[in-house]
């Protein structure tokens, strides 16, 4: 049993982290967030590097790599909060690739792989999605319903009303499909991967929140000592690490099942999203608290992590909803066990 990444995967991780550390510095992220625009230059660069297509099959213009590689990129983008529509677009692509008919895949995936087409994915009720992350930037929007169906609609055909969410590092919109768009052959098939992607992004967000907090509490002195020396603060940080590592290990496991043991993906993805949603909310809130007064300021940048975590935690079902799914799976297994 080996939880480690391969050398190639570690290379992807390293270059992604270095690139974003250079091209998505906090000042730059803040500037784009405050202007509520995406960083088109960075998006272009990521497209040139093949990021949007990393897990799309080579047949459709992607790199043909797996969920683990995709998760690595999602985590790094979460860590940096880069203001680009990466997550929305690859989620749309996942659902189309694994749930679309061959014809649907051939029609939509190449554009999504190259990044020429920006995608988005949102949960809808009777064709209306109240908040689609990336909805205002997308050309192609996937709406998933509770009944397991999914529909793809172009931004031209849909009724797209941009709205300002609390996380301006990505656009948002209310999207109404009416009777338009096209049903995917299988609406559910790619959802597990979409859940793993957002869970991985949340791991990156939590990791960054913890790193910023540790740095701050080592530095900030009160009563003559760094505040991180006080157990109330250090124990809070330890709790943040525990939550982050829980989320990290369940997300990693889920990514692995997507590539190696698909039968476990549904349950693993629900576990990952439940852990990551809770971790995202708690760790970023804790980070604000540990920063004291500064944590509550616009300037200190912690709030961007909190806001991103809030949007991601609610995306495609909060922790409670996923635990309800898990509970259903457990009851089924228990029933099967007693029947056997």
């Amino acid at each position, binding site marked *: 049993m*080996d939880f480690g990444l391969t050398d190639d995967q570690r290379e992807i991780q390293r270059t992604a982290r270095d690139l974003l550390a250079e091209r998505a510095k906090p000042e730059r992220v803040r500037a784009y967030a405050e202007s509520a625009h995406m960083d088109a230059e960075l998006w272009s660069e990521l497209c040139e590097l093949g990021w949007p297509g990393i897990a799309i099959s080579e047949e459709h213009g992607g790199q043909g790599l797996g969920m683990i590689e995709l998760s690595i990129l999602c985590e790094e983008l979460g860590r940096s909060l880069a203001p680009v529509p990466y997550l929305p677009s690859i989620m749309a692509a996942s659902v189309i690739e694994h749930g679309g008919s061959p014809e649907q895949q051939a029609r939509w995936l190449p554009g999504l792989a190259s990044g020429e087409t920006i995608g988005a994915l949102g949960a809808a009720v009777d064709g209306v999605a109240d908040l689609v992350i990336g909805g205002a930037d997308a050309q192609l929007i996937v709406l998933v319903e509770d009944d397991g169906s999914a529909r793809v609609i172009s931004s031209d055909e849909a009724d797209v009303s941009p709205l300002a969410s609390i996380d301006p590092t990505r656009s948002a919109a209310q999207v109404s499909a009416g009777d338009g768009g096209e049903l995917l052959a299988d609406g559910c098939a790619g959802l597990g991967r979409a859940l793993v992607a957002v869970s991985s992004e949340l791991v990156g967000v939590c990791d960054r929140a913890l790193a910023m907090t*540790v740095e701050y509490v*080592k530095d900030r002195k009160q009563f003559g000592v760094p505040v991180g020396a006080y157990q109330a603060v250090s124990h809070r940080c330890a709790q943040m*690490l*525990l939550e982050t590592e829980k989320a990290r290990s369940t997300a990693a496991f889920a990514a692995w099942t997507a590539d190696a043991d698909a039968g476990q993906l549904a349950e693993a993805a629900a*576990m990952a999203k439940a852990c990551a949603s809770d971790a995202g909310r708690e760790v970023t809130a804790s980070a604000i608290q540990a920063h004291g007064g500064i944590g509550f300021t616009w300037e200190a940048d912690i709030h961007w992590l909190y806001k991103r975590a809030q949007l991601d935690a609610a995306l495609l079902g909060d922790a409670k909803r996923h635990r309800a799914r898990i509970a259903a799976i457990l009851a089924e297994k228990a029933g099967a066990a007693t029947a056997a």
Partner: protein
Amino acid sequence: MDLTFSPQEIAFRDELRAWLAQNPPAPEPTEGGEDAHYGWRRDWQRRLYDAGWAAPAWPAEYGGRGATLTESAIYFEEIGRARVPMAANVLGLLLGGPTLMVWGTPEQKERYLAPILSGEEIWCQGFSEPDAGSDLASLKTRAVKDGDDWVVTGQKVWTSGAQYAKWCMLVARTDGEVAKHKGLTYFLMDMEQDAVQVRPLRQITGEAEFNELFIEEARIPDANVVGGVGNGWKVALTTLMNERAGLGFALQIRLRQLLDDLIGKALERGVYENYAGELAELHVRCESIRLLAWKGLTDIERYGQPGPEGSLVKWLWSDTNQRLTQLAVDVVGPDALTSGTRWSYELLRARGNTIEGGTTEVLKNIVAERVLGLPRLKVAV
């Protein structure tokens, strides 16, 4: 990343599983109290020993199978899964033996390892004292050289199995002049002397897993010093590190079984929907513990050192067991509050989980200081 077992590991697991299935222990005694129960565990160890399954992690030269870390983890998972008792000499097998393998002289290994494995000589641990729990290094039990012997006086607490033990892993102060960590020595003390009195320590569940030791001028031959005079702290750390490693995998499976039983109970009583969310959360925690434990092994195998997972696993496991046993009161009903039942025992016993083997407060300190690199506050008293 590969979360499957190798063919060799699967073979190891299957061999053990088959043996356990074909060789169940005798039924747990319902009469005869603690002595009968201990005898049952001793017989079980003898059977494991005869089949070569008492301590697979021990090197072959000492009677083990030279099992890898992964195989060792599999061993504890299977022992847990089969719901068989812990071997009677669990402390000797998991702590004493491995400590001697690192720090013992060839003569000591020759003399002590085989009887640990067979269960002929039971071992106990004499570390904590009434005034030295989390601050173990401040311990006061004193050992003074007298000819070829050391004369020991002091008190130990939380010594499990002491009433059946032949040997005690005793840490005592041999030098009161130096810094507290540096004046300690690790001894093997013969429990069968009048100078060592064992008094059971009754716990909140009603019975006494643990004991107090009252040591009044006990004698320990110089040959029973382990790791050299004054080196006791380092030797003790080896023992404590082993405490965390092996048992964890069995405990985690026990937790899983408890949860499966609780889910079954909820369904049986028709209250599953009321507690579905909490049960699912416990399931997520159980699986996280398992993943973190296995991830921890990867770190040891790749880097020779445990990563953050070591402290995190024990912390998460103890907290989860407390939540689970508390939820059981709601799910199971009055049976869980009735003395002598399984669920009431688990509820009460779980209170000790966040204290034994490193309190949660200390584990958080370890994570904060050693993993996150936060400074430690020195309080002027």
